[in-house]
């Protein structure tokens, strides 16, 4: 392990961390604007041109607010819970190839922190740990609404993971590898080679599971404002509360990278056009998260479990079996 490799890795980690923490902040701005336009409002308008500096204002507010830790909470767990959500979201990014490799001043850069050959398993596993944040925060808070939210987190966790795992199995069988770079190279031939054409069911199932994984609106039951105040976030204040949101938005961005990489050709043949295409796809999937939030009502916890276990899981299993049969004959 030479020094150049070490320095390169550290630089990559820092760049990803900075870009995506900033994007998480800007993501909240996008969300408020998109929701506002869909509801015929203006959204944030006062801070800066078109309210663009609202992100900075919110950041200053969150950073300088007093960090209140209520009396009856379990202190160490309460303190570490938001860190788990934010940290695991960024840890998952280690195995995502954000761009095709490019040459900078005669030095070839691979924009992936660690090209482990089990990339997709690692990403799904580490993202799943992220749900420990809401769970621990909710259980440590000594608040009934937070506890309800923790129980719902456990319910969400055991429901969606089976669906996302089984849905991803069929494309993995076709590609024969777990590395996202291999996924991308498999589809490098152009639009006709995209896995979505041969695996439409897996694509839709994984997309639905992504909503449950990030806790976005149809499955936003972990922190439903109108039912359980802010769920796990009820007792939090200041930057600890903000960390939950950085984690959530970073997760949304990373899953928006993973879906196109697996099903929609990723960055294609690795040209500049392909890289821009990936950005466009990521933007679409991120926008879709916000769109559903404006357009869909929330489901109840029992409806989520019913949907995952009785509808989506059988569909995923049938999809895997059919894929296996087609590949065998």
């Amino acid at each position: 392990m030479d020094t150049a490799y070490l320095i390169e890795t550290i630089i990559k980690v820092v760049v990803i961390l900075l870009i995506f923490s900033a994007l998480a902040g800007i993501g909240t701005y996008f969300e408020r604007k998109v929701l506002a336009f869909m509801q015929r409002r203006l959204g944030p308008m006062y801070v800066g041109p078109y309210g663009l500096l609202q992100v900075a204002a919110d950041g200053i507010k969150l950073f300088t607010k007093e960090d209140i830790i209520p009396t009856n909470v379990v202190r160490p767990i309460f303190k570490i819970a938001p860190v788990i959500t934010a940290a695991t979201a960024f840890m998952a990014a280690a195995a995502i190839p954000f761009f095709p490799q490019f040459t900078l001043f005669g030095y070839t850069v691979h924009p992936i922190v660690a090209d482990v050959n089990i990339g997709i398993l690692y990403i799904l596993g580490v993202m799943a740990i992220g749900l420990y944040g809401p769970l621990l925060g909710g259980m440590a808070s000594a608040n009934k609404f937070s506890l309800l939210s923790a129980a719902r987190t456990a319910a969400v966790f055991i429901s969606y993971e089976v669906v996302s795992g089984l849905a991803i199995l069929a494309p993995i069988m076709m590609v024969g590898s777990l590395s996202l770079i291999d996924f991308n190279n498999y589809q490098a031939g152009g639009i006709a080679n995209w896995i979505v054409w041969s695996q439409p069911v897996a694509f839709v199932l994984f997309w639905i599971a992504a909503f449950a994984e990030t806790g976005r609106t149809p499955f936003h039951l972990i922190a439903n404002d109108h039912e359980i105040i802010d769920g796990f976030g009820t007792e939090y204040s200041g930057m600890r509360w903000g960390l939950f949101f950085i984690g959530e938005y970073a997760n949304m961005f990373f899953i928006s990278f993973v879906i196109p990489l697996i099903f929609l050709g990723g960055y294609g043949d690795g040209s500049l056009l392909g890289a821009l295409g990936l950005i466009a796809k990521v933007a679409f999937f991120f926008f879709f998260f916000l769109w559903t939030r404006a357009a869909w009502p929330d489901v109840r916890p029992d409806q989520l479990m019913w949907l995952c276990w009785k509808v989506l899981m059988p569909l995923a299993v049938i999809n895997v079996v059919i894929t296996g049969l087609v590949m065998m004959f």
Partner: protein
Amino acid sequence: MFEAIAFYLFAFLTIVMFFITVTTSQALYALSALAAGMIFISAFFFILGADFLGAVQIIVYTGAVMALYAFGMMFFDSTREVKEKQGNKYIIVGLSTLAAILVVVIFSAPMVSDKIVALYPAIDGVGNTQEVGLVLFTKYLVPFEVAAIMLLVAMVAGIVLAGKKMDLSITLMSDSEIEEQKNKKVLS
């Protein structure tokens, strides 16, 4: 050097986490430390180059410990300390020390006598996942299938035990029907 640093770091963290799990009297500490310890163990797989097993360790144990949390939530007030019944401390300490020494001896004996040989050495140029698959579906096919059947039996048993009112789905009912059910329960 990095491997050594990573190994000692994660060895220390794992031992501390499991120590907390065993010694604390608070359910929430114990469960969180258990989850953390299980996840830190995956680091050893990554250090040894067994990426697939490392990722599986993370996925399996986050799920398993999450189920434990659900039970902990149901049975304890997780923010309070649990009053434990203290038995004879000397017997507990003695037996657990003996068990720990036995485990260490069992696993280190082949290493000390240098009799440890890889029955299925890693093949060059074959991915991690493929290697696990090769061994699992040739040498260890029977244990693998037996484990699958045992899990199936456990699943069926779980459904039978828990499925008293399986024909009744709240999700598929309308609101008025749910109210009806509620009133019936209140009256009876």
